[in-house]
């Protein structure tokens, strides 16, 4: 038996499974050591040094033990990891600072009371009026923008031919690039023509302008994903085109369409500039979006921060409102994912 004597041509030297972790730990230690020795104080610096050492170390070690091809493979893997960490660090630190500072004053009282007559520099008060205003303005904007956006996308994908479709696509692209302040100014100019006071619905109109192109784009992509075979199968049954779209195309893509709308809602929920111009802000509860100034969450955050002249209580409220806004957007995203999963075409047996 000479199995031991014949070396396998398929086997090569391999680094042990734990080696990437060991190299990572080593480069972190080395990075800390170097920055300590050099007297660098910023934590960004040692992390960058560690990242660089990790990529280089992986390459050198892998090249010596495993060979050049495997080393290239490992350098790609380690670059992806470093890039991932670089992307995640700001996110985690943002969430961490918002949560840690926002929880200070966030309680049921804060969520269920308005600012009322509490001065910006004093503690107390809440964001009930801002939540109410945000919900109403965003809901009205969605009611306007979602149907128009979805119908436009249906036109573009199912019917659009020739010049009109190209023009619509072009203007949707242009709309995507409209800065939110410009949308606000556009509505403001109309308001000034009719001598109107700020009110919530004006903000909704500006938000709808910002939301529409996002809905059109995402819905368009979702409708394009519906296989043509399904449309043909339906048409071949003698089903009219409009019913084919309504009963076959849209149900097949409804999950993606709702996700797109929810993401667009999340986007406009954080808009401040048009709301500042058109809704004005209000420290009292105003449940009527069609008359009088209203409050909204992003505007509340801005005003607490800008008008308080460094008062700690106002900063705390701004952070707590930020946390509420992030939570609101998170919940919307989760709902969207839930709907997408629930409505996705089923494949079970």
């Amino acid at each position, binding site marked *: 038996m000479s199995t031991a004597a014949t070396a396998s041509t398929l086997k090569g030297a391999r680094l042990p499974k734990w080696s990437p972790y060991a190299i990572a730990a080593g480069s972190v230690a080395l990075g800390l050591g170097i920055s300590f020795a050099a007297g660098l104080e910023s934590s960004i610096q040692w992390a960058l040094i560690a990242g660089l050492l990790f990529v280089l170390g992986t390459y050198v070690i892998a090249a010596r033990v495993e060979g050049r091809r495997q080393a290239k493979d490992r350098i790609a893997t380690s670059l992806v990891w470093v890039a991932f960490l670089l992307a995640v660090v700001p996110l985690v630190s943002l969430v961490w600072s918002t949560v840690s500072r926002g929880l200070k004053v966030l309680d049921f009282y804060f969520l269920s009371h308005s600012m009322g007559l509490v001065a910006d520099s004093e503690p107390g008060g809440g964001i009930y009026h801002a939540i109410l205003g945000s919900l109403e303005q965003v809901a009205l904007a969605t009611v306007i923008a979602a149907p128009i956006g979805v119908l436009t996308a249906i036109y573009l994908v199912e019917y659009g031919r020739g010049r009109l479709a190209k023009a619509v696509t072009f203007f949707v692209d242009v709309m995507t690039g409209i800065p939110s302040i410009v949308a606000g100014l556009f509505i403001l100019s109309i308001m000034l023509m009719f001598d109107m006071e700020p009110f919530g619905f004006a903000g909704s109109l500006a938000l709808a302008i910002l939301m529409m192109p996002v809905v059109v784009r995402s819905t368009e992509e979702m409708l394009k994903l519906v296989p043509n075979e399904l449309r043909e199968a339906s048409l*071949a049954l003698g089903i009219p085109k409009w019913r084919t779209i309504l009963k076959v195309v849209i149900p097949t893509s409804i999950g993606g369409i709702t996700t797109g709308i929810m993401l667009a809602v999340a986007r406009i929920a954080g808009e401040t500039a048009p709301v500042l111009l058109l809704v004005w802000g209000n420290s009292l509860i105003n449940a009527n979006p069609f008359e009088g100034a209203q409050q909204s969450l992003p505007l509340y955050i801005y005003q607490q921060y800008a008008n308080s002249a460094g008062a700690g209580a106002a900063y705390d409220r701004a952070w707590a409102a930020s946390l509420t806004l992030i939570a609101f957007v998170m919940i919307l995203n989760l709902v969207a994912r839930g709907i997408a999963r629930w409505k996705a075409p089923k494949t079970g047996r």
Partner: protein
Amino acid sequence: MAKRIDVSGLTAYYGSHKAIEDISMTVEPRSVTAFIGPSGCGKSTFLRTLNRMHEVTSGGRVEGKVLLDDEDLYGQGIDPVSVRREVGMVFQRPNPFPTMSIFDNVAAGLRLNGSYKKSELTDVVEKSLKGANLWNEVKDRLNKPGSGLSGGQQQRLCIARAIAVEPKVLLMDEPCSALDPISTLAIEDLIGELKERFTIVIVTHNMQQAARVSDRTAFFNLAAVGQPGKLIEIDETERIFSNPSVQATEDYISGRFG
């Protein structure tokens, strides 16, 4: 019930490209007609002109006449939707509606064409699934999604869906090319049964299949790539496979083509 198709001088285009040229033939009611020929020769295009599905493709247009029992499908005032209710179609790849259950898939044609009572629908669905030899396999799971069936079952589901609206003619575009031999056999048997009630036209690349299922066979060919496809000959299947009148047909059938 089944209707006769008379095609005369039919030419179809994709934009400026002429896909098939000057095709004339008669398809007898209650018979199976098979179309054979090399890829790209326009068999499928021709099939799709028979229920006005050709014009669904962008740039698709047609010249010539297609008579369905003396009524021109391309005549003035003809509604393509009504044409497709009379001339049903089964596609190459099984394409059940993914959001619908097996029951809803079969009922789709009726339900989306107008209002039907639940009891009527149940009857039609059972009859159609039995007609497609699928009833015994799915009767206990009519509410499960259609996409959970095997490929062969899905294709029979599509046939059930097509015959549920009681068309006069059934067009099949390579219905077995994505299926294994056992499912193919099941569908070929089904074609034999369906021809009692419908006029059937089937496109196939499988010459044994054409020989097995069809009464008449049409051979299509194209002079060169980029040239329009033409009908070379149409005759009794036995004649085509034993003693065709055109040399090109014999070459194609005996595998001496190209």
